[in-house]
């Protein structure tokens, strides 16, 4: 069962394709194979209000492929997926489905992908609590383990 998700804010994806190339370099993918690709919806003109600008629809949407394993090897080392790390627009995020779904609710023009059944246990993955109406009524339950920042090596 999928446990983790990529959250992509496509209001800001500029189509730089750093995610595409970072993934290929990380996983040694040859020409003709991809772990993530950027799809264009547009450009096409929505209305005649203006000659350009916001009268045009153009969204670039990175979509993980069947070859995406959410960078399982990097996750095992405690690192973010390489696409998320390198995104020039800082428009990609990674976390548990619950954590990313809560962020999805914060603004429009985002998309959530659960590319694979990666169910590796990651520190902090079970700490996230979805805020509910009941939670507003009383103190939020404390997480069992306070998340610790990773120790810096000398």
């Amino acid at each position, binding site marked *: 069962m999928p446990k983790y998700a990529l959250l992509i804010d496509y209001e800001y994806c500029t*189509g730089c394709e*750093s995610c*595409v190339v970072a993934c290929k370099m990380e996983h040694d993918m040859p020409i*003709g194979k991809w772990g993530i690709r950027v799809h264009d919806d547009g450009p096409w003109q929505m209305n005649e209000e203006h000659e350009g600008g916001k009268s045009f629809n153009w969204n670039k949407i990175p979509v993980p492929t069947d070859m995406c394993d959410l960078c399982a090897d990097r996750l095992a080392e405690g690192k973010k997926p390489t696409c998320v*790390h*390198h995104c*020039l627009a*800082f428009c990609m995020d990674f976390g*548990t489905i619950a954590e990313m779904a809560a962020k999805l609710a914060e603004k429009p023009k985002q998309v959530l992908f659960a590319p694979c059944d990666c169910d590796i246990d990651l520190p902090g993955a079970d700490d996230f609590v979805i805020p509910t109406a009941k939670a507003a009524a009383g103190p939020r339950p404390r997480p069992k383990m306070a998340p*610790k920042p990773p120790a810096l090596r000398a």
Partner: protein
Amino acid sequence: MEFKNDLGKPWKFEEGDFTVVRSAMWSPPGCHPVGCGVKIYVDKDGVIDHVEGDENNPITKGRLCVRCLALKDYVYNPSRVIYPMKRDPKDRGKHDKWERITWDEAYALIKEKRDYFRDTYGPECMAVFSGTGRSGGILVADMAQAVLGTPNACYTQSGYACYQPRSMSCSHVLGAYYPELDYAGGLQNTYDNPTYRVPDVIVCWGKMPLASNGDGLFGHAVIDLMKRGSKLIMVDPRVNWLCTRADVHVRLRPGTDTAMAMAWLSVIINEDLYDHQFVEYWCYGFNEFVARINDPEMGMTPEKAAEICEVPVEDIYAAARLYASGVSSIAWGLAFDQNQNGNQAAHCVLALMAICGNVDVPGGQIIAEIDAAPGFEEGKKMEVNLDKADAGADGNAAEDAARPQRRIGWDAMDPELRAKTIGYAEYPLYVDNIRNAQSDMMWDAVVSGKPYQIRMGWIQSTNLLAPSCCAQPQGWYEGLKNLEWCMATDCFITPTIEAFGDLILPLASCAEKDDVVMTHYAGSPVTLAACNKAVDVGEVKSDITILIELGEYLGSDALKNEKGERMFKDEDDFLTQRRAKPTGMPFEDLRDIVVFQRGVNYRKYETGLLRPDRVPGFLTPTGRVELWSTAYAQYGEDPLPYYREPAFSPHTNPALAEKYPYIFTTGARNYASFHSEHRQIAVLRELHPDPIIEIHPDDAARENIANGQWVEVSNDYGRAKFKAVVSVIVKPGTVQMDHGWWFPERQADDDSRDEIIPVGEIATFNDEVLDVAMNGTEIRAAHVHSDHADEPGLYGVWISNVNDMVPNHYNSHLGYGGPYKCNCCAIKPLKESYDTDMRLVAEKFDI
């Protein structure tokens, strides 16, 4: 969730089986000096295993573009040159005639040739040609003047139509160097620094910084700022992606930017939206400037501009009012350079920045702080001659003061020899400002042999045939065949080197040398960063090492200090003396911290930090922003702005427009390559495999062109083939084409060569020599007879060569600018496909 990171790690550390080197990237491969943070993972054999973005970098914070991500494929590319090689001049064009030699042999050969040409014909018969973006590119004047001893350094772009036209206006109109978008790059904690404020409005004018990162501006900072509330105005004929996020998008006709800028000024002045205090205290000639803007003939109104620029007048009012509504910042680009009217467009945009009070304020336009004059004492008044070396140079005070890595050889050169620089008599401002031969006059010299023949060449980090820069590359090709001997420095054999090179010196890439990355070449208070060597490859050397070693070998006095010793002990010493200076630390210390943020003192015009004599004000003769430009007047140009219609527009030349009904523009940037570089990096080529032309659906239907079909475009100067992208992002009647295309996977050998044009003969094309008098300027257009468009060989450099359709000599009065973005052509569909065979690319170039 929390993740591991490498924050706080030293510049070099161990991780598992790797040594990780933290570094800041510049070039080669070409890129502008942003200094993006990288972590280079080197294995036990000293080989790069992989590259990641360095989260320690205060601006890029771990982000990285595709070109740095694919660095390994560049460094270890099978077609890379890693040893010096020579070839007999009679075998030029033949890819299998190169033979490996040693560095000692290479230097000896250069000395033999240099001495021969200097002693037989005079040093001026040598010329060094350079390209853009590269760390070595900005050393071209030093290579020519200090190393070889010739005054002729030449960036071959017609009218130096890249950055320098803007720089020139900055120096002379503004009296300060390079007003750039303030993205808090030089401030601790960047956007969160308490001194900083996010711009209310960002304008990208003829610039798409996300892909171009012009001159060190980290383009995606615009996205960071939009997320923090900045509104966006785009001034661009095309609907690029960023335009679809803009609050106002003005889709002006190519080449009409001056009209648009004058119209904004008209709105802002007449609706009283400007900063009265700044105008009163810090501007010169405001009344005259207003009179020109409001002049019924030479001035501009939004209504007049709407007609000229072919945009709705409401867009002009909306843009101007939004710009003037708060703290605004303009990121201005090549549209100001690649235009005969560009000097006026720049004049206007600088005026906008000034009268709206956006100069050197937080979130506005940051400018460089310059050193006090030698001998300056606090509290004592001093006389400074702005024309001379105190401020840095003849007539280019602000730029030279802001970019203290002085051009070594120019001042040391004998004045009589300096006077022989090609184009000096015709364009003295250009030559004095840049210390380069004027490129169009150099084109004349190589084609016609007048005023004298160039006999020895140095192709220095440029692929001028490909090209990104030069106009009429056919002419350059025919002319440079007359070089008797030619050396080159680069990482790959390009069509240019294959065509003319007799010796190639292999350049170190960014992973193989130390360097200092200087945003805006040190002319902006952002960062100075260390490029830290990570690996060794073959026998490559850096440009700086070549400068030092070859300079010494050739006995250059300009590279000796007062004691007669080497001015620079080695590469790191050069970096300490010349590039790391503003950090106040030697290179070794900069290496440790990797990135130095320079800090910003805002409103320097109030505190004297813009002038070497420390008098408040700007570095101009009047001490103020010269809206009425004394420098323009001095050099014979109108001191006030005016609009001039592009030379190849339907209005200027209706007969030409009938033959060639499509306005064409070029130069739009791409993430996958830096101009003509990266064509042999398979993973990058896959992103953008073919040269494209954008055509509106109405035009495609009329010409019977399908999406993805190949077409041929042509005009009186040349022709080229492109793959059609049928799209509404261009207006009907306008097309946009890729530049810098060659095909390294294709045939190298030039086995079909036309007759060589004898020196001194100006040939015709289509039996027509176009000599036109236009606005009082005589346009000479010497064409070259041979049409190379279908010639095999030279890696297909003539197949999709858009600059072949761009002529030389369409410059401004001051010698700047060229018609790269506002020209005209005809289009016809082709039956054949020229689609790139990606399997062939992968086969030849995968590592």
